[in-house]
């Protein structure tokens, strides 16, 4: 079976993003609209291409405003594209009718960052999780309860019956995140978009949740699109990582490559900025100047050049493409090899 899949190139990838763009119009007052003459856009995602292999955990990392969440939402059709195409399991999402897309959601699920906010406060945990079954497996209605109990046990919510009739505010934060995971997995999806799934959890709970996610991935043959701002956490779950800066990919490589041989100057700065839990290894690197620029008017050329320590004059003119510098290691910087 594996050999067949590798033969067909398109089936190797569960998700293909081709030059996707997402521009949000900037809300302006009427006066400004009249006088400015043109509309301004926030370029949340600007020409990103990405292929995600079946069964891998792909991490999208970046600071706030880098467009990582928007890419996630675009790739499962929660947001409409400005340009480009998203192909899931060989199906172009744009070609689907609303109803077909709704049916397809069975195969792509989301784990949200804030479990409290993503659970309906007036629905019991059991029925929250059961909704997915009611929508996508209405024919199995007599088994729904057992299926929910089964998934509850799988995510570590035991005794399942105890949790079935509880409301979200009655359980702890870690348990709520487990419910959210259960809800995402009960429809047996192929792709799970995990939007900072452990960011809200405490350190001591986080490790168990990450472990659970890895376990479930193997058990259900899942593909994760893991969105995070925390590179330290991404390391424990991701196979490959894409680093985003201002709506563009700066670097894509395996986790090991990114952590051990970062090439893009931005990746290097990002990695250096993350504090190390060892007081003997305090950071000595100087941080890049300034903060992330305004995505309405991003700098011309390479978007990182105003803050880049190795910037050359032509960086402000030409936009560097994402090129494969080494096998499987893509970098969008002309001078990456120099440093």
């Amino acid at each position: 079976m594996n050999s067949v899949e590798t033969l067909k190139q398109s089936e190797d990838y569960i998700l293909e993003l081709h030059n996707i763009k997402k521009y949000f119009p900037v809300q302006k007052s009427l006066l400004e609209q009249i006088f400015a003459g043109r509309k301004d856009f926030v370029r949340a995602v600007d020409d990103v291409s990405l292929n995600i292999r079946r069964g891998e955990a792909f991490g999208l990392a970046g600071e706030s405003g880098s467009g990582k969440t928007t890419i996630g939402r675009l790739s499962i059709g929660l947001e409409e594209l400005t340009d480009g195409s998203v192909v899931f399991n060989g199906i172009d999402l744009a070609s689907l009718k609303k109803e077909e897309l709704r049916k397809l959601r069975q195969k792509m699920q989301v784990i949200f960052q804030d479990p409290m906010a993503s659970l309906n406060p007036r629905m019991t945990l059991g029925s929250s999780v059961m909704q997915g079954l009611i929508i996508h497996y209405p024919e199995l209605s007599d088994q729904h309860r057992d299926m929910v109990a089964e998934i509850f046990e799988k995510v570590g919510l035991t005794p399942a019956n105890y949790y079935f009739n509880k409301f979200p505010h009655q359980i702890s934060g870690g348990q709520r995140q487990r419910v959210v995971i259960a809800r995402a997995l009960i429809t047996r999806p192929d792709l799970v978009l995990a939007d900072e799934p452990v960011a809200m959890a405490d350190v001591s709970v986080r490790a168990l949740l990450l472990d659970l996610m890895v376990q479930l991935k193997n058990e259900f043959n899942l593909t994760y699109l893991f969105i995070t701002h925390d590179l330290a956490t991404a390391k424990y779950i991701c196979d490959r990582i894409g680093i985003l800066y201002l709506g563009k990919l700066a670097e894509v490589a395996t986790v090991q490559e990114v952590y051990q041989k970062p090439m893009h100057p931005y990746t290097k700065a990002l990695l250096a900025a993350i504090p190390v839990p060892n007081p003997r290894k305090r950071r000595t690197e100087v941080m890049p100047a300034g903060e992330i620029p305004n995505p309405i008017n991003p700098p011309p050329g390479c978007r990182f050049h105003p803050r880049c320590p190795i910037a050359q004059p032509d960086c402000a003119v030409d936009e560097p493409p994402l090129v494969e510098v080494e096998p499987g290691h893509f970098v969008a910087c002309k001078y990456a090899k120099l440093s």
Partner: protein
Amino acid sequence: MNKQSEKIDSAVPEWQLELDKVGFVRKLLLARKWYKGDWWFVLVSAVLLLAIIILGVFPQWFAPYDPKAEVGPSLLAPGEETSGFLLLANIDDHVETLQEIATKTNKIGYIMGSQATQALRDSLEIMNEEAEKEETGITYQPRGYRYEDVQQGLDALQAGEIDGFIVSSEELGDHLQDYPGIYFVEEVRSSKASSFILGTNQLGQDILSRIIWGTRIALIVGLSSACISFVIGVPLGLISGFFGGKLDRILTLIMDSLYAFPGLILAIAIAAVLGAGIGNIILAIAVIYIPTYFRVVRGQTMTVKNELYVEAARSLGTKTSTILWKYVFPNVLPSVVIIFSVNVADAILTEAGLSFLGLGLPPDTPDWGIDLARGQDYLRSAWWLITCPGMMVSLVTLSFSMLGESLSEILNPRLSEL
């Protein structure tokens, strides 16, 4: 290590399990501790409402009299005794009871316009019934003689023109001492009750009974108009808030213009067009409260639809109708419940107002508004005409809004731990 850790992890704290075992009633009692004042508010208002609802559903069990019938003297104060009437006769006649002087051949006098006639008629009726039962064959039907005042009557009695004279003690005053030959035989009472807990109105109707029957009208009007506004306003608000766009703009425009109109005046206008009758009143009141639901539900919906759990539901592939019904509506409901209770109270007031203005129900209907309207003419002489129905309006209004306000606290799921 891993197995053990999972076991501990899944273990539910004991105290929580214990709380789960606790029954519903005990949980309610426990709730008293957390909500304190609110809990008692809910309890008191719930008990009050229950009592009011029972009153409204089964008024016949509680009302002592027919609310539309004249059951006593008019304008009797609460608890006041109707004085009986005095039967006077000549000592020489040796009369001991009314029967002796009430046959066809007898003549009995009274003052013109006195309530005594009624009392006499009632007494005769009773006597005749008894006579029929015992088959004595006697018919009690004395001839009545009317006099201008007490003195004339007493003169006639002394002169032997009549066999007896019936007079109230107030009418009699101290005239009796001037007529040594006349003495007091017995008291003649009307068959009607002699005292009423809340008094009687100007038509001699029992106020207590009218209030109890009025509860039914108030509840019917209050609840059904609130339900109608709810059923129309809430879905419109949900749709308008959730989908937005042109429909939302049009609906908002209509509702805002309705809302901007003073409520009572609008209700008067609608009621005037539709005409009297309970159904029309309900409709008129329902219309003026639709915008209240609409606005609140629309606003809440716009907030709730941006919540992450709605987004989560959508990403699960949930149908829009299901999202509206299962995700948005339950989270909008608490604020609507509060409006509903306040609305019922308001509707009762409005209905009272409409009836007060004569735009409501037929005038003989036992209704608080009508009673209030009619009672105002007697405000100085008979305070109880207005006070009692007025208090009922306040009481029902208060208990509905009290329940609503305190429910809001208890219904908030994030506040209620456990």
